């Protein structure tokens, strides 16, 4: 049970990770799996950029290009960005609120395995049949007409992965509502915890429409239903609505945690309290709310009519207000602070202008009349890469450097970190800035090549070179990770020296029970307050006692495996002469229900760490 550093065999470590319910280890799993999918999605992006390097290129075929662009988008959003965000939420949020674990450790593990099996299923499409090829939006008018199993992989894989995300969202909500340490009121919660809270609520309400949309698509493609078949009375616009009722909140699900990470970074490395904390909370909640009101701005050209378009255009532009509040608060946090330009801070400072540019083009696109001009051009591609890379990916890099010591107990190399930053930052702007102009000059997105003599050649070369610079930045980061892991120089509780929130009061990495005694929180930036009063750690809020811990379990893996098996049955049962599809589908579902049944009838009370064992562990946990 102990996570104390002792040499263990590979098998024991593997089994530990397969069965773990510890949020800190699940964070490792999310980071590794999300990181791998990030590399796969990045590779797909490189292939796209190689293909577009010159006119009439034949590096990949038109069909393969469609598969690459679809899988790039789908992988990056669902299998890279989401899990990487979840990695930091799992690693940091319970520590920030002074909790010993999340509310549902078992479900936490289940959420991860569902995501992983869904992601594996989706990516197996490369080897088993053809990859999905109707874009990450997979509009029904196109996708139900596609032959082969590509779209089936999309519908079933995302269904499984989406279920995992939904479970994770409920888990975080309950954790934040019920498990805050004594004194940790809502308005003392760190900004990253606040964004996790709002994002979890968005997940709870945004994922069910996707679930329904994917079910309808699954039924249409695999079970003969007619939701999207106009000849049978169906309507393809239903898919567009469901996809974007999910899809727009989804982009806020990604960006709000990024805002949270940057809020932490600005405060830490300016050595100042976050400026306008309460307005930041207000802006976060408002963005979350408005995020549900604007989905049809993705459908301006669908033909919903001028009234619907106007309402959604106005609602869209309204989001610029709370976002602007945030931008100014970050600037004022830095104003007059004693700033240290560490790697996380570099990402944070670079984030402001980069993201702002994406925001400005967002307002341009939000104007319905103008959108008809930009629609389906590279201008749109440039816009969403500026917000998602310039916002989310920058935050993931910043968060990786900031929280690496807290997750793994050792610091990433700062020099290599800054090289990564420079390469990636320059590469990013080189790739995507020029794409605004390519779009305005009329280059359509999602088309596998272009003709010479249209003025697109030079710009595309510039864009492709930028993509390789970004790849170089990622490679430097990987080298950094390897070097750091091999050296493995252990660091103390607060390696950045200016940590403000509770996670920095714990050892790096924290003991498996997090807090020996729950800390007493006396205000915003709880650890900073204690430091300013000359104390070395938090004041405990309870006497030392036995700690209740959950048992590890292999059942989450089995529940997810059952759905993975069932998905193959559902996909292949309609093939000519297929006899095993339906039995496999039923077997998989029974496997899942059976695993849930075992979980239900076997009592699991967890175990207690006796007080005596904790007393010996004096160097860990909260110091009294």
């Amino acid at each position, binding site marked *: 049970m102990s996570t104390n550093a002792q040499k263990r065999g590979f098998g024991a470590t593997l089994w530990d990770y397969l069965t773990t319910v510890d949020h800190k280890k699940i964070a490792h799993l999310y980071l590794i799996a999300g990181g791998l999918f990030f590399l796969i999605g990045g590779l797909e992006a490189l292939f796209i950029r190689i293909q577009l390097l010159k006119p009439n290129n034949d590096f990949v075929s038109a069909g393969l290009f469609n598969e690459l662009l679809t899988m790039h988008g789908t992988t990056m959003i669902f299998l890279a960005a989401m899990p990487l965000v979840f990695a930091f939420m799992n690693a940091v949020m319970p520590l920030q609120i002074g909790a010993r674990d999340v*509310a*549902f450790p078992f479900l936490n593990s289940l959420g991860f395995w569902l995501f992983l099996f869904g992601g594996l299923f989706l990516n197996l499409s490369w080897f088993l049949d053809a990859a999905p090829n109707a874009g990450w939006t997979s509009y029904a008018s196109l996708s139900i007409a596609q032959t082969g199993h590509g779209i089936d992989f999309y519908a079933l894989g995302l269904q499984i992965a989406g279920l995992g995300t*939904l479970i994770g969202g*409920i*888990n975080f*909500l*309950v954790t934040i*509502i*019920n*498990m805050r340490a004594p004194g940790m009121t809502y308005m003392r919660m760190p900004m990253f915890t606040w964004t996790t809270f709002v994002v979890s609520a968005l997940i*709870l*309400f945004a*994922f*069910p*429409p996707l*679930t*329904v*949309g994917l*079910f*309808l698509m699954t*039924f*249409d493609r695999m*079970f*003969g*239903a*007619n*939701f999207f*078949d106009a*000849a*049978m*009375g*169906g*309507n393809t616009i*239903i898919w567009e*609505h*469901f996809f974007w*009722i999910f899809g727009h909140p989804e982009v806020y699900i990604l960006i709000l945690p990024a805002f949270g990470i940057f809020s932490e970074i600005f405060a830490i490395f300016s050595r100042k309290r976050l400026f306008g904390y309460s307005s930041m909370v207000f802006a976060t909640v408002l963005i979350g709310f408005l995020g549900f009101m604007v989905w049809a701005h993705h459908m301006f050209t669908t033909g919903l009519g001028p009234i619907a378009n106007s309402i959604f255009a106005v609602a869209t532009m309204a989001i610029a207000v709370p976002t602007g509040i945030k931008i100014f608060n970050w600037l004022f946090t830095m104003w007059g602070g004693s700033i240290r330009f560490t790697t996380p801070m570099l990402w944070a400072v670079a984030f402001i202008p980069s993201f702002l540019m994406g925001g400005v083009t967002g307002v341009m696109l939000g104007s319905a009349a103008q959108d008809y001009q930009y629609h389906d051009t590279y201008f749109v591609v440039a816009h969403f890469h500026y917000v998602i890379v310039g916002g989310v990916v920058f935050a993931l890099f910043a968060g990786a450097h900031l929280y690496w010591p807290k997750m793994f107990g050792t610091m990433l190399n700062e020099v290599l970190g800054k090289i990564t930053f420079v390469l990636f930052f320059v590469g990013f702007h080189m790739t995507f800035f020029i794409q605004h102009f390519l779009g305005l000059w009329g280059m359509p997105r999602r088309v596998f090549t272009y003709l010479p003599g249209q003025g697109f050649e030079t710009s595309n070369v510039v864009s492709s070179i930028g993509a390789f610079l970004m790849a170089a930045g990622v490679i430097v980061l990987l080298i950094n990770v390897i070097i750091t892991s091999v050296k493995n120089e252990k660091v103390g509780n607060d390696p950045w020296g200016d940590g403000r929130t509770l996670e920095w009061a714990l050892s790096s990495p924290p003991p498996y029970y997090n807090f020996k005694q729950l800390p007493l929180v006396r205000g915003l930036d709880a650890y900073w307050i204690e430091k300013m009063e000359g104390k070395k750690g938090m004041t405990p809020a309870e006497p030392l006692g036995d700690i209740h811990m959950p048992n590890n379990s292999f059942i989450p893996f089995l529940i997810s495996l059952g759905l993975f098996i069932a998905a193959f049955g559902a996909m292949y049962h309609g093939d000519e002469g297929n006899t095993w599809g339906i039995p496999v589908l039923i077997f998989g579902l029974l496997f899942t*229900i059976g695993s849930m*049944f075992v979980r*239900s*009838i076997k*009592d699991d*009370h967890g175990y207690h760490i006796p007080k005596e064992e904790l007393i010996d562990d004096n160097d860990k946990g909260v110091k009294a």
Partner: protein
Amino acid sequence: MHVEEKMTVETWPAAPEKQTLEAKNKFLGFWLFLGGETVLFASLFATYLALKDSVPRSDMPLAKDLFEIPLVFAMTMILLTSSLTSVYAMYHMKNFSFKKMQVWLGITVVLGLAFLGLEIYEFNHYVHEFGHTFTSSAFGSAFYTLVGFHGAHVAFGLLWITTLIIRNSKRGLNLYNAPKYYVASLYWHFIDVVWVFIFTVVYLMGMVG
């Protein structure tokens, strides 16, 4: 209070479903889950309303040709009554009357089975009398998906409550299984509420065109 503690009528608390932190988490988490389920069914209702009576040929049956109130009314009454019996069960749970709780839950399961039986009969009737199937039209797909999702929820609820009844039959109530009973009854109420909307939106509104 400890979860495995042997309880008596005297020591049994007023809100046995949320005495421990685990129980409080389960209670809140389940309510949130029901919030997500509400959005799920709202999406299915929207799909149904968008595709209602949307058929490829004019000779195919529409909502007003299919539905008959007596059968659906009987189903509605059965399911509403099953919600009432599950309330009785929770009343006895709070009073630490284990046997009575089990009996009322048993009655709830029987009523749920009766509902499910009638639903299967109803679907069978539409398929064989009217040729109204899952694949015959967009209307058929939307109808069977909405009502079928509800039916699948009923079936899952029956499995769940039956498991609870059998699993705990020998050991009585404690603070570990009380929240399990409680959230199962919450789920059952939710299914009932969804049915009230199906009865209204699909059947009553279907009758008037």
